[in-house]
Every structure is written in structure tokens, then in C-alpha cells.
């Protein structure tokens, strides 16, 4: 079974600073990879996904993520954080070539943005 680790429970950055949120997964092959964002009282919004091809993936709101097979990682980055980015971020994986649609989520990283 796959698992996802988000090592940082809480991160605080200053507005305008760069951001990197870590995600490591455990899976026997290359999984499908996702990053979602959840604002208070809101559902999960997809930021970006990796299915195949270029390992550097561009998403919405200026976010990008890089799949590194050797490190089993899919870290999320943003060069300059805005106050509106304060939210909870979830990394998720899905099994490949199994027909299973269930996503396995990490426990999330809460981002706080200081003015």
C-alpha cells in the first residue's frame, strides 16, 4: 500500500519569500502525484498533478512541483508567496495501472504568511 509523508506540520514564511513544501511517498512504482490546497471552510482545490512526462510540473497560482524518482519526492514550490496563499496544503498519491481510484493523502502542511 502507498503512503505519503509531509514532514512539516506548520510553516511560516514572509510575504514575498520563496516557499518549498516537502512531500515524500512510499510506493512500489511511480504513482500519480497531486498537490491540493484547502482554505478554511473550503473544499480541496487542485494545484497541480503529475501523471507522466516532464518531471517539473506547473500549476495554478504560480505553484510548481518537481517529481524526483530517486528521492521518492514531489516537493511544491513557489518563488514569491502572497498573503492569500495562507492555507493547508496536501500532497496525495494514486496507484498506477491498478484501476483503483482511491487517493492517499498526507497529513498536510499548514502555511502561515507573515506581512
Amino acid at each position, binding site marked *: 500500500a502507498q503512503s505519503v509523508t509531509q514532514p512539516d506540520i506548520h510553516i511560516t514564511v514572509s510575504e514575498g519569500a520563496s516557499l518549498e513544501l516537502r512531500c515524500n511517498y512510499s510506493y512500489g512504482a511511480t504513482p500519480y502525484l497531486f498537490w491540493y490546497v484547502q482554505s478554511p471552510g473550503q473544499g*480541496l482545490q487542485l494545484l497541480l498533478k503529475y501523471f507522466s512526462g516532464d518531471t517539473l510540473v506547473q500549476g495554478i497560482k504560480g505553484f510548481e512541483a518537481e517529481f524526483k524518482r530517486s528521492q521518492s519526492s514531489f516537493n511544491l514550490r513557489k518563488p514569491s508567496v502572497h498573503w492569500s496563499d495562507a492555507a493547508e496544503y496536501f500532497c496525495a498519491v494514486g496507484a498506477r495501472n491498478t*484501476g483503483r*481510484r482511491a487517493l492517499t*493523502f498526507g*497529513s498536510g502542511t499548514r502555511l502561515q504568511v507573515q506581512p
Partner: protein
Amino acid sequence: GAGVSQTPSNKVTEKGKYVELRCDPISGHTALYWYRQSLGQGPEFLIYFQGTGAADDSGLPNDRFFAVRPEGSVSTLKIQRTERGDSAVYLCASSLRGSGDMETQYFGPGTRLLVL
């Protein structure tokens, strides 16, 4: 267009009571998913429908939990004899096709269930 909608947004019930949570998927989406998100945790998969049938119910924690999707659109998650440990946000998602490999899942705002 309209996204996934869930009703009610909040539900408070007493231990031992029965509750129903409703999900309206994005129009035209064939697949529908239920997840549960406990406080401070990521969502956990419960069940996935392909059309009217449950294609994968491996995440349902026990037989108190049941879900239906009789016409292949709206789904209802039913919890019998609720327990305090059932308190969580119940998230619904939908995706376009019901077959083939993984697709992007689009989530609703969730129903926050509190069992007193």
C-alpha cells in the same frame, strides 16, 4: 459551471442517531468518491462509485457506514448508530469518466459532522 455541492454543510447529532449526507457531483461526471477528514489529518478514502455501482468500498470503516447512488448522479452517505469517533468532515469528489486509470478528482466543500 457548478462544482460539487454537499448538504448539509454542518450536521450535529447525538450518539446513536442515524445521519444522511448528500453529494451532488459536477454535471456529467460519472465517477463519485467519498472521503473522511478527521481533525488535523488528510482526507481518507471511503468509497468510489462508477455510475450506480460501488466500484471500491474498501475504505468504509465498518458496516455502520453505507453509501448509495441509485441514479448515477446524487449520492447519499448513510451512517447508522453514530459514534463520537465519527465526527469529521465528510468530503465528496467527482471525476469525468468512470472507467480507465486515474483522473483528477474535484472536491466539494464537505459536510462537517459533529456527534455529541
